[in-house]
């Protein structure tokens, strides 16, 4: 902006903008629109580029790519069923734990259980969890979670080894430690969006519930949570999206074994972990297209989950406006 044209430097205090200023104004606003459209184009280009590079593999391997379970560069046979299954299992396990803790945290931090100062402090501490880099969680998981979980897992295996979920020992990395760390990582997402949903429930509803004799938890579980349910559901969906795409901590903790096993303590793999492990040293002709196709599958899954999550949240905030 040219300061010589600013209103302050002119003789009179207020006067209409000059032609130059008007042109300048229009130019700047058009420029911001172009940059804003660049954000949209970036998303479109990203989807296009990954699809384009994945296309050869999609043509070559066809639907067998999704249901096959080999990953062999020498034989040029690629299938990502173990990765898809491992992604879903690890994310759903993490989601179960993350939702229990996340929604509970959201209720505690939105329903005046604690003094306001403590509530503010805890809200921010939970958010700090989201600030810690994934790779640091992975390192922490290797040095804290795995040694902590291993004796419990192995004693479960010794006493209840007949049960399929406990049918192997935890030798080091495995599905359960990865899911546990994932749960910790998605907790802030679920907690903060659920908390927003719970906090936007009109106070009147709560007062009415108390007025007809509800206890605090009756009001919470029968009035407030059901009213905020769409928002909480959106939070869980977005948490799921995060868990599905989370890479580093999972790649460091899941064991990267190209198998599907019932046991929670057996090593597994995910789509993101496959990309993290294979991409840097992949054969450019044979393996890169297959990896691109795996990336496309991951992209489609996370795009669908995220779009659904964002739409649920938009609809939830709109439907709440009717109650206000």
């Amino acid at each position: 902006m040219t300061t010589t044209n600013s209103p302050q430097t002119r003789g009179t205090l207020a006067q209409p903008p000059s032609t130059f200023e008007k042109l300048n104004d229009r130019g700047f606003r058009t420029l911001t629109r172009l940059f804003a459209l660049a954000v949209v184009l970036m998303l479109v280009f990203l989807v296009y580029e990954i699809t384009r590079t994945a296309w050869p593999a999609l043509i070559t391997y066809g639907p067998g790519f999704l249901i096959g379970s080999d990953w062999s560069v020498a034989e040029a046979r690629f299938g990502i069923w173990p990765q898809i299954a491992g992604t879903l299992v690890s994310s759903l396990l993490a989601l179960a734990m993350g939702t229990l803790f996340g929604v509970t945290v959201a209720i505690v931090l939105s329903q005046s259980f604690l003094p306001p100062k403590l509530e503010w402090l805890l809200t921010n501490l939970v958010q700090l969890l989201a600030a810690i880099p994934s790779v640091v969680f992975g390192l922490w998981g290797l040095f804290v979670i795995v040694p902590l979980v291993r004796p419990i897992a192995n004693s479960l295996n010794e006493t209840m080894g007949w049960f399929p979920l406990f049918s192997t020992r935890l030798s080091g990395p495995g599905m359960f430690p990865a899911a546990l760390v994932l749960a910790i990582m998605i907790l802030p997402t679920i907690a903060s969006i659920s908390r927003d949903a719970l906090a936007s429930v009109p106070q009147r509803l709560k007062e009415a519930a108390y007025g007809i004799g509800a206890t605090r938890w009756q009001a919470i579980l029968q009035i407030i949570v059901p009213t905020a349910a769409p928002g909480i559901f959106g939070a869980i969906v977005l948490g799921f999206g995060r868990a599905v795409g989370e890479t580093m901590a999972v790649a460091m903790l899941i064991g990267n074994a190209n198998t599907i096993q019932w046991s929670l303590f057996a090593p597994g793999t995910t789509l993101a972990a496959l990309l993290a492990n294979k991409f840097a040293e992949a054969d450019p002709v044979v393996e890169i297209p297959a990896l691109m196709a795996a990336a496309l599958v991951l992209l489609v899954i996370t795009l669908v989950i995220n779009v659904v999550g964002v739409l649920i949240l938009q609809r939830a905030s709109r439907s709440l406006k009717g109650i206000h």
Partner: protein
Amino acid sequence: MTISSQPFGHGLDPGTEPAQGTPGRKLGESSPSDQNKPPHPFRRDLTQGRFLIDSGLTILALTLTFLALVPLVSVLALVLARGGSMLSLELFTDLPPAAGMPGGGLGNALLGTLILVTIASALAVPIGLMAGIYLAEVASPESSIATVVSFAAKVLSGLPSILAGVFAFAVVVLTTGSFSAWAGGVALAILMIPVITLTTAEALRAVPRKLREAAVGMGATRTQTILQVVLPTASSGIFTGIMLAVSRAAGETAPLLFTALFFDYWPEAPFTTPIASLAVLIYNFSGVPYPSQIDIAWAASLILVVAALIANIAVRVVAAQAPSTQTRR
């Protein structure tokens, strides 16, 4: 047994239940000792089932909440203890130790992370800033472009970071034929842009409407209003949003694994070759059996965690100050 209890915290709490605590009592039947005290409307029987359940649920919920904070405390404590013990001048000036060798530092990785983040910021800050200005100041809230842009930004901010790496690999690495700091910078920029766009728009929307009206009333164009009045007012919010995006990018590993790769020596000038970074160093050294390399990984974790904490605390401090000095527009 009837226990008088004070309502928790505020007046509209469950204690407001009339007669529940004094079941079956009619006025004439009160015992002589009770005669001076009329039945208290705020009394209730805590042994009654639903109040027992209520207290039980409260205890359970508080326990789960504090359990949820244990990992944070554990991560911070371990990073501080193991990384803190490594702090020395050599840590910042030396190259990482070779396998099995003692000592060493992370100088090249720290410099590499700074270079990567600088490249990413140079790309992401202008785009994010302008897109944020468009969303908050230029477009009318109902316009379809604004809806699409903010939708795209939200979807991009939920994009798995490794896919940003895949994209940068396809666009930069396959095109130029080599792993490079530029490819890593592009990958990080894709992750920073939605964060900067959304935080900038939010900071601008918090600026009171009055200020804009005053500027327009003085004869300023909308551009002059934005650049000379609104942006300076929102600058602290925008700045902390950029800090947040930078600190997040600094900690990102997945997008760098096959774009910037890693390099055992110092970064070289045109940055067209692989480059070291703190995040990839942690990943590479996390699975090795050599204590000196694991120590360096913890030291790198400390640097990334401290940077992330500073950015996040700054954001929260600015956000906490905003409502007291500004009114909603």
